[in-house]
């Protein structure tokens, strides 16, 4: 069997092993990778920068533990930024297993800044069927969520006085690991006109760039790189986003090498076939 045939028929388990080694390397050797900031992430950062002194931002935890590694760091950075500026947050989760995970983060970060539920933030919890929930929130947050996650009626939260729907918040940032992003664009932005930005996984990112150009999104935070950019803009030195970048870099480098190797083997085989 010629070398190129062996390479072209490489057992996928070798690929897994090589990639695993590439992912482990940054864990053993400390690596620093510089991150350049993009306009789409800067747009979100400067928008959230205006959420200060009591202004309201709607932050949606539309992901579950599976995409936590990519989406948690950016969510955390946004929460720090808002609470640091004395802005207020309304949060929800359109992902079934989002609420307990979101609650942990909210409890921790709100605790750091001494923020109180009902006064500085409201966590609405989860409701199934994202499209229906977003549509109902466009009417009034109380329609899908008469009680918050902690079973307190929204009408009893001082923060929710006079706050009914998306007209009363500055904008929505949805951290999304599934199809809720489409629902936010279709219903939140197109139907109710609320300014919308998304934080999405790296795999999903290319799907949402068109909405940036059509101005249906004012910003986009794509994957762990986006999270690292956001942390850099927010002066967070030891964030999970920045720490995750070396892992992403080595794994991408390996995939690129794989693509080069497979094509060298492919062309070698083709030229050998022509010679015959």
């Amino acid at each position, binding site marked *: 069997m010629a070398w190129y045939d062996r390479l072209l028929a490489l057992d*996928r388990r070798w690929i897994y092993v090589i990639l695993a080694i590439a992912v482990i390397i940054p864990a053993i050797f400390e690596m620093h990778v510089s991150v350049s900031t993009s306009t789409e992430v800067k747009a979100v950062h400067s928008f959230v920068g205006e959420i200060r002194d009591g202004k309201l931002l709607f932050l949606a935890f539309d992901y*579950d533990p*599976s*995409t936590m590694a990519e989406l948690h760091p950016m969510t955390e950075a946004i929460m720090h930024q808002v609470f640091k500026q004395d802005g207020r947050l309304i949060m929800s989760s359109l992902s*079934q*297993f989002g609420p307990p995970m979101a609650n942990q983060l909210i409890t921790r970060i709100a605790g750091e800044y001494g923020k109180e539920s009902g006064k500085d933030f409201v966590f609405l919890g989860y409701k199934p*069927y994202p499209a229906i929930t977003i549509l109902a929130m466009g*009417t*009034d947050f109380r329609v899908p969520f008469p009680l918050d996650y902690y079973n307190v*009626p929204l*009408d*009893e939260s001082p923060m929710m*006085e*006079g706050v*009914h729907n998306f*007209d009363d918040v500055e904008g929505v940032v949805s951290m999304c*690991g*599934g*199809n809720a992003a489409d629902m936010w664009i279709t219903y939140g932005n*197109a139907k109710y006109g609320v300014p919308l930005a998304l934080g999405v*996984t790296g*795999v*999903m990112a*290319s*799907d949402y760039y068109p909405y940036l150009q059509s101005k249906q999104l004012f910003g986009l935070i794509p994957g762990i790189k986006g999270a690292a950019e956001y942390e850099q803009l927010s002066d967070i030195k030891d964030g999970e986003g920045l720490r995750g970048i070396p892992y992403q870099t080595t794994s991408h480098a390996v995939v690129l090498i794989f693509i080069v190797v497979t094509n060298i083997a492919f062309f070698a085989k083709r030229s050998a076939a022509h010679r015959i």
Partner: protein
Amino acid sequence: MAICASAQDQPAAQRGSLGFKALLPPPSALTATDNPNDSGHGILLTWEPSPHFDRVLTYEIFRLPWSPPSEGPPLTADVPESCWIQVGQVPGTETDYVDADDEPTLGQRVNPNFVPRNGELLYRVRALANDGSYSAFTPVAVGVARGDWFHTQRVNVLFITLLLGGLMVYFIRSAQRGGKLFIRPIPGLSRIDEAIGRATEMGRPILFVLGTGTGGDIATLAGYTILARVARKTAEYQTPLLVPVYDPVMLVMAQETVKEAYMAAGRPDVYQPQNVFYVSAMQFPYVAAVNGIMIREKTATNFYMGVFHAESLLLAEAGSSTGAIQMSGTDQVAQIPFFVAATDYTLIGEELYAASAYLSQDPKLVGPLKAQDMVKAAILILATLGLLEATILRTGWISSLIAPY
């Protein structure tokens, strides 16, 4: 009324503008009309800008508060000044405002900002100058909000729906009269029988995955169409068909689809209800279970038809590692590259929807497909004209025709 209880008794008309010196000429010609295309809880206010518009920072919109009829007659314009409430503020460059609020109560309390349907509301507007001074108020305008019965900004949607419906009827009639309607070959669909035959020859089961959408997604419904076709063939060949389902509602539909298909094939005795089963409504547990089924049951053919997200590649790669022939179809653009890379045949977007027409060649199903193509051609022509218009004439008339609602 409670909100005015402590108010001064001087009528508003006799006072200045809340004690500030009126240096700026006020805006004029204030009108309050029903806000179009709403449920009847919105008033559209328009006004002419202040003559010194370059000095205007913002316009402030005031109105008399709403109170339920049980609390007495509505307030009139000669109420004390403090009864007027500010409901909005817009930049000095704008000359309209929509006052909308459909909540009569806030918890236990009356919502004074509520805009009642068919009830009169009194408005006035003043300007705030750059130097902090205010203009006088405009004369009071009265508005009545009414519920609308037709959304005029959705005419474009209605038009395209009617156009498509009309063309559908035309092409169905045309096909029924014997007109020949050509559908281009779709490799993914023409190989379905071959893939089923392969599993039969190998004596192994077929796996059909309907995706992680809901029963209301068009792609899922199109997946049922292909499932029905596959189930009918497996009934004929007596090949086991496994359908692990993601959503309980989809389970009921899938069971019914497979059962009906087995009955239509004349083999209800071969139908095994336990082969169509619910697994989990969580993405990754579902993937783990389905991948386990592929490996343990050694399925020979895998179909992935419906809505897929990040699980697409996890499923397709696991199937590829077992050596199964794989067919996929989805309308989720982001997942199409993964399916193209890891499965043997992929139905891209609308090809999935075309399955029933393609497989049956029934005129009733092929006709609508033609209608769809005609509208697509019209959109293509319109897009090209719009491109030329924007490039050469630098206007946007065509794009405004199809602007979203």
